[in-house]
């Protein structure tokens, strides 16, 4: 799952160090445009349904946060 996510992320935003960054939203490395693109791909790739309520900084600040979100929705 992690590889798939990393693939999506690096394709959408090349040049961002997703491995180490933990403040992707707060530091402005990911913008709203990037987020929705990533979200659409995530929904497609992992077959989960995201809602607008899920679009909060805490869920997208790091790769780990995103993985947690996906897992919680898969249940």
């Amino acid at each position, binding site marked *: 799952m992690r590889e798939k996510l990393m693939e999506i992320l690096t394709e*959408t935003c090349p040049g961002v160090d997703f491995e180490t960054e933990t403040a992707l939203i707060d530091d402005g490395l990911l913008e*709203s*445009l990037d987020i*929705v*693109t990533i*979200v*659409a*791909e995530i*929904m*497609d790739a992992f077959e989960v349904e*995201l*809602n*607008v*309520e899920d*679009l909060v900084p805490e869920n997208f600040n790091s790769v780990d946060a995103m993985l947690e979100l996906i897992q919680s929705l898969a249940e």
Partner: protein
Amino acid sequence: MSFTSVGFIGFLAAVVVLYYALPKKCQWVFLLAASYGFYMAGGVKTVVYLLFTTLSTFVAGLWLGRLNARKDALTGPEKKAQAPVFKRKKQMVTALVLIANFGLLFALKYWNFTASAVSGATGGSVILPQLNLLMPLGISFYMFQSVGYVVDCYRGKYKPQRNVFKYALFTSFFPQVVQGPISRYDQLSPQLMAEHSFHADHLKYGIQLCMWGYFKKLVIADRAAVLVNTVFGDYTSYSGSIIALAVFFYCIQLYCDFSGGIDVTRGAAQMLGIDLAENFRRPLFATSLADYWRRWHITLGQWMRDYVFFSLTLSKPILKLGKWSRKKIGGTLGKVIPTATATFVVYLFIGIWHGANFRYIFYGLWNGAIITSSQLLANTYYRCRMKLKLADDNRGLYVFRMVRTWILVFLGRYITRAPRLMAAFYMMWVTVSRPVLSDLWNGTALTLGIARMDYVIVLGAMAIVVAAEFFQERGTEIRKWLEQRGFLVQWLAILLPLLVLLVTGILRGDYISSEFIYKQF
């Protein structure tokens, strides 16, 4: 009450004094009374609309909160089963309130325009009656703010406010009711309800911010406005360079008037110990049109992002479009199409938000087209930059981007200020086809309603503003810097602005020269 009236300053002073004099528990009640007093000073009748929006969104919030609570009370499989039921109920409540309020907004702000557009389109065969309703103060601001609250409640972001009076303060808070910023409930309401003890710091920062705002409004905006009005009021009589001059001055006027007003708003709130969101962040230094909209009228952009853009991109139609475009078109383009569509819609809405007019619609489309096209061409730009071996933080590239943005914004101003859309195109055409550059120095510039001294004042003061923002952009906090200076410098920083305001205010005041007092002598 206009911000620049003596009445408002007196009102503000009285509010601040009483606010800190009253027992802290009563502070928010006092603010509520003051806010409604302020609102009704502009006309008692229109407060009905404010009450309608306040009450309807308050009730909706409570209802949604209850639905959310009931849903969360359930567990496991039952929760999953009931989820769609709750969702439908919440959607109905939200839809009802939104339609009621936006319907009201439509009737007040957009009906007449729609009616005349329809009769125009049908060649006069369908004539809809025009409504002559008075537009309530700040409706575009407080309504959006209230709707944001409802949607937040729908999304379960926070528990709704149970006290209608506390909620009413959120929607009517007087500094921001006139021209924003559009605040978020969870950011503003706790501050409003908190108890504030007197801090000299707050009062000082607030006063400084207000003075800065008044400086921009009184010294720059009101002065530049005269030239702008003269030229736009009679645009067929002027050559291209004069029109361009007027558009340039309009850029100055609009920024100084709007951001100055926001400064006064935030300064007033700051005096009460309340932090309102920033609405402007040095738009002059924007590197792209999208960046510009993140620096200009920030709260509107954020509102659109959170309540329109995100909702749209995660809506079924757009998701479907996304799936299709990724499959059929593929590549980066395929991925971008759904978001680009949503972006386009957002800017169209932004355009319409500004006013009921073809030119605002066009303005929205214009911004949308440029921004979406740059999204679609993002890859192309990236490849160009690689070819030219330019790093992203290259100085020259930075300047190039700024200048490009200035030009685009400058052109956009033709559209919004002209009396009609066709007039805007005409004026753009005249600017390039008949510039007559000599008009700028052959004396024509002095016939536009302002004197040489006014030019000096406007441009000089604007230079001060730009210089201040330049330092701020680089990270200097001017107020903190000022605090480090000595006594004399700080006192001069009080005296000089006050003097400037006094003198330029005087120069504008009504006045009859003794040479004209007795004309028929």
